[in-house]
């Protein structure tokens, strides 16, 4: 391990746990162990904490507490939403989603396609944006579900989900959004939208891992995915994960208070980081700079490979992610960057920094101090950098899409 202090800039992967959240959870690991479904007062008192957490989540999302279902994670919420829509409309076999979804939606939809459903995977442009005319044209009478993420985890690009929800509604399709990255970073008021279902994840909001939420609008047809007891009004069986749900309630309360900070101070730090990194030669930012989360930055350093950059950063205590092939273990660079047509030269050298409420100016300075040297060292080793420097002719075009 390195002797450097940890500079955690990988909050889109998982966020630093908030001490306030952990403090709120602790009693429920100990003395307050009752089952909220019990008829005795000892268990019943726990139910009050569960209700309070539900209210706090609803306050953050701008909806009613009855519309909140607690789950184990964002992936469970996404899977449940898709299954619920398909089971509610057995006659409709068509699903619309995008090519840049998180695997929780993308892989599930690819599986649906293999099992006889028809799935439209919408493309994005070089900036990572959808073509809204194309979205509208793709929704048909037999479309059961439209699932479009609120914000992309790799680039931070925000989709106009409220508009797309209205399009889906107009054609009688259910609209679901994976809002795991957006919640707490962009203002959300579900009652003012036509969004039917929304997934969020606790550990992106500074809780420990193991809790999520599925919002289901009142009146939306719903079939439970996890069946068993009557918990969550029969919509998600299984004894409630009380400590984590209580923690999530506290985290949502904090997120409401910190929303302004996210969009001013944190955004300012991100912009400063990006500005500094762009001073390194042959560097580019991935994703529409005008439609992005305030905390996310995907930067590509051409002609070097992401894993090598990450390991050198790691030695300095800096935590980030990469869309390069070598870090994913899949041998191909990120599906998001490929869908955007990011050139090979840049896709393999992409680094994602994701900040949070806990990020500081000193941390950004630390990265800016060391990054140019790391890139220079790796470019000295790279056979392509010299070619690029001498001829400038090596730059490869975008991906040829199948």
């Amino acid at each position, binding site marked *: 391990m390195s002797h450097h202090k940890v500079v955690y800039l990988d909050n889109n992967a998982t966020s630093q746990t908030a001490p306030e959240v952990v403090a709120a959870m602790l009693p429920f690991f100990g003395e307050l162990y009752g089952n909220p479904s019990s008829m005795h007062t000892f268990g019943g008192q726990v139910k009050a904490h569960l209700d309070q957490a539900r209210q706090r989540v609803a306050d953050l999302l701008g909806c009613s507490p009855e519309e909140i279902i607690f789950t184990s994670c964002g992936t469970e919420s996404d899977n449940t939403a898709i299954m619920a829509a398909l089971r509610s409309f057995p006659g409709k076999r068509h699903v619309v989603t995008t090519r840049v979804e998180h695997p929780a939606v993308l892989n599930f939809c690819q599986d649906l396609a293999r099992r006889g459903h028809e799935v439209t995977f919408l493309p994005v442009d070089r900036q990572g944006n959808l073509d809204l005319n194309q979205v509208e044209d793709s929704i048909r009478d037999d479309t059961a579900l439209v699932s479009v993420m609120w914000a992309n985890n790799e680039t931070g690009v925000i989709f106009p989900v409220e508009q797309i929800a209205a399009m889906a509604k107009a054609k009688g399709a259910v609209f679901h959004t994976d809002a795991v990255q957006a919640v707490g970073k962009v203002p959300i008021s579900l009652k003012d939208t036509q969004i039917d279902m929304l997934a969020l994840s606790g550990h992106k909001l500074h809780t420990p891992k193991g809790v999520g939420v599925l919002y289901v609008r009142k009146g939306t047809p719903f079939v439970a995915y996890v069946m068993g007891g009557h918990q969550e009004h029969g919509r998600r069986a299984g004894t409630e994960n009380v400590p984590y749900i209580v923690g999530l309630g506290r985290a949502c309360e904090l997120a409401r208070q910190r929303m302004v900070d996210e969009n001013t101070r944190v955004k300012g730090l991100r912009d400063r980081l990006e500005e500094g990194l762009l001073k390194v030669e042959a560097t580019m930012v991935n994703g529409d700079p005008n439609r992005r989360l305030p905390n996310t930055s995907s930067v590509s350093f051409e002609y*070097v*490979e992401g894993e090598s950059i990450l390991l050198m950063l790691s030695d300095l205590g800096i935590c980030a992610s990469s869309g390069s092939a070598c870090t994913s273990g899949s041998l*191909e660079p990120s599906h998001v960057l490929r869908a955007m047509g990011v050139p090979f030269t840049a896709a393999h050298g992409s680094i994602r920094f994701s900040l949070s409420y806990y990020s500081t100016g000193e941390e950004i300075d630390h990265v800016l101090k060391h990054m140019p040297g790391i890139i220079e060292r790796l470019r000295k080793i790279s056979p392509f950098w010299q070619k690029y420097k001498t001829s400038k002719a090596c730059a490869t075009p975008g991906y040829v899409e199948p």
Partner: protein
Amino acid sequence: MWEYTDKVKKYFTEPVNVGEVENPDGVGEVGSLACGDALKLTFKLDEKGRIADAKFQTFGCASAIASSSALTEMIKGMTLEQASKITNKDIAAFLGGLPPEKMHCSVMGEQALTAAIRNYQGLEPLPSEEGEVVCECFGVTDKEIEKVARNNNLHTVEEITNFTKAGGGCGKCVDKIEELLAKIWSTAAPTQAAPIQPPKKKLTNIQKMKLIEETLEREVRPALKADGGGIELIDIAGDVVQVSLRGTCSSCAASQATLSQFVQTKLREFVTPELVVEEVKP
């Protein structure tokens, strides 16, 4: 997070022999930007024909950089004949091992070395380019897969992907790799067969028949099927097993060899060592 050995980390953070040798005697370039890793190896010989200097330039992950740097250290002072015997296994061993998913980095080193030596000899970069491309995503040929599979005793598609990347892109060629593996290991069986074990006790005729049928089903048919052929058990008289070949196998000139070398070896291995296989025409 990959588990790299300290030696991999050392050769990554402090790589030696970075760059290009001036007026090189041999140059080997493999990989590409599209693939995600690439290596350019250059070397210079001394008057006695030994590698006096070797340098590398690598685009890739930590294990690719470490493998390349290690390779240059290994070959310095060697004759070309000695160097040509270095395999990916030697590179991985030098580094104290590589994660399975990263073995292709050591294969890239071996390929660059081969290409550089061939370049010195005035030959095309890689002999494997004569083969047929199996994996279009990473441009891997059947010859390359076969070589790596045999050198490293690889039997599954996953292993092939770890070592060559083939099959790790769109996944369309996975079936082809499976077929290729079946072919490689069915023809290799005679030389690689386990030492023949004496039977524990004499089998009854019923037991023998049952065991022969089972062995054909489990060990023989899948391999023949990969070539588009099949085998039928006709009769068993004492230790003589009469079989007939179906489909592609029956018209194949090599069918006689298939029989004696493969079916008989399998039956002797799993039933009893006295068995003799005879082909009868259907």
